[in-house]
């Protein structure tokens, strides 16, 4: 398998993992919104309520930075990273 194909395979793997996490916090948990809201979440807010106003939003921010770092590692591994800028 060529270097490029391997790079794309890893990139696709990272995409699937990123989208899986995204799915859980944007869609998955809200299937159980009513049940989850009975639980007390961080800072004492009802759990589902907390996810809608802070939790999911914050997780998305962290997820994007995590994704960007992982993708950079993959690019470096195959020598595909760009030179001299940021």
């Amino acid at each position, binding site marked *: 398998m060529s270097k*490029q194909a391997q*790079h*794309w395979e890893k*990139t696709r793997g*990272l*995409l699937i993992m*990123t*989208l899986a996490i*995204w799915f859980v*916090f*944007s*869609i998955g948990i*809200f*299937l*159980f*919104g*009513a049940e989850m*809201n009975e639980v007390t979440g961080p*800072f*004492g*807010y*009802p759990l*589902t*309520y907390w*996810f*809608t*106003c*802070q939790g*999911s*939003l*914050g997780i*998305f*921010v962290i*997820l*994007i*930075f995590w*994704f*960007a770092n992982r*993708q*950079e590692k993959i*690019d470096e591994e195959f*020598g*595909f*990273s*760009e*030179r001299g*800028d*940021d």
Partner: protein
Amino acid sequence: MIKGNFIDNLPKVYGIYTGGFLGFIIIMSIAEQMGMTAKTIGICFVAFTVAIYAIIGYLSRTAQADAYYVAGRQVPTVFNGMATAADWMSGASFVAMAGGIYFKGYGYMALLVGWTGGYVLVASLLAPYLRKFGCYTVPDFIGTRYGGNLTRFLAVVVLTVASFTYVTAQINATGTIASVALDIPFQYAVYVGLVSILLCSMLGGMRGVTWTQVAQYIVLIIAYLLPVFWISNKMGAGFFPHFMLADEVSRIAELEAQFGFVKNSAENLKEVPKGLAGITKAHSAVNATPWAFISLALAMMMGTASLPHVMMRYFTTPSVKAARKSVGWSLFFIFLLYSSAPMLATLSKLSLIDPSLPTGIIGKSIAEVQAIDWYQNWNQANLMFVSDFNGNGTLELNEFFMGGKAVVLATPEIAGLPYVISGLVAAGGMAAAMSTADGLILAIANAISHDVYYKIIDPKAETAKRLVVARVLLVVIGFAGATIAAMEIQGILGSVIWAFDFAMSGLFFPLVLGVWWKRANREGAIAGMALGLISGAGYLIWVRNGGSGFLGITQLTFGIFGSAVSLVAMVVVSLITSAPSAATQKMVDEVRVPSGKSILGKQH
């Protein structure tokens, strides 16, 4: 004071700017103490900030195509994040979001999740690849990837439908704020708003818009956060509201249980001025079905990833790597405002309905409430209304009505903050609406000037001529938007949400599959864009004319239907027609590798 090139000095330039703005707020509050009238303060805030944007717009003037279309591709990640956040957060986000949460609770908060979760799709599926492609506009990518003028043209059509739906609402918002702050009739204020918008974008194109949007973000985030923190502290709710409002949230639930949600008769509701609503939904309880929540969130997420005015901000970063990081920064800056909106809604609601607080009005006599100063002000502005439906002389929860905008606009006054905060909020709302309108008008004008005029009509046009065409279009589209906004067809054009549905119906799958599915071809893309947009729009028209809809898809989520049709059409048509040429497949391979030259040249 400032040496060397502008980009290296950005933190310093915007640091001085932020300090200057804070200084201006302090000067204004001193002026208020010395007796400056509320009206003069409002005028000063709006005039001062707009003048600064205009100066930035003038300093950013350019005669080069790549500066005009993609800001010379040298905007650093963090600053591009701020610009995107301003581009993204519209007048609606700024003025109406807290109100939506206040009235609708959980059901509305699907928008918070949707409008942030979409950025994960932007970062992982599209932005870095479109940046590598090196396009100037979103149709530029569609046209080059799939080939042919028809694909390019259809992409321009989808972009124009989605962005134009959005932009009239923004020009309307700038007009509303300008008319209140400057005390002029709305019909003229709309054009004042438009001129302010064009001052930022006309001379410098994307470069001008970028640097004004950063300035606008700074104004709007200060204008949003300062009152939230101040009110929270003043009410004794907590020094850092985001982490400390659990007691307030549970107190609201307690009061809701105590008052109950009494349903008003249709006859009683006729008395209530149009546009005002009462509290009829629980604040923190789950009050929507899972599908209602998820379908709305999903439509907004896919819509986010298809809106060209957002996507084109990532064409301005210096590299592919920077484009990815920049999406993270964008969402971080958006998060600062979005996570504060529910806190403002909580503080606003509790301060009004809790009888044990001095500001609480529920349980007081109607006559007493009608005598309160701020009630009279906002009642006159048609944003508040009380009526004694049951005739017991006391104000009940179901007898109190408010406009959605009042949560952001009136809460500072109710909480007893000085007027300077209201002036600041007006400047923030203006910044939010202007920055989004600029991004949208530029997206439409650039797509028409670059993709229709230069790529299809006159490929030999000189750069100077192209930029003249681009600027003329900018003015024409701006005026068209303002003219429609001045007609005040509320309810039809006010629906920002429709823009997301239109964009996702026509563009989501053609964009995503263009990168992720090599087999996608021209015929498939044409079918995907045309059938997606037509079926989405058809569904909207059907539901608005009394159609029952299916699968719980409403006029707010019609994009789910449109994009499903688009996906099926694109896959089926691609598979029954021949595979894309070897050259196109090689182009897709190159897009997937971050290093190396971009597909389209620096000047094209």
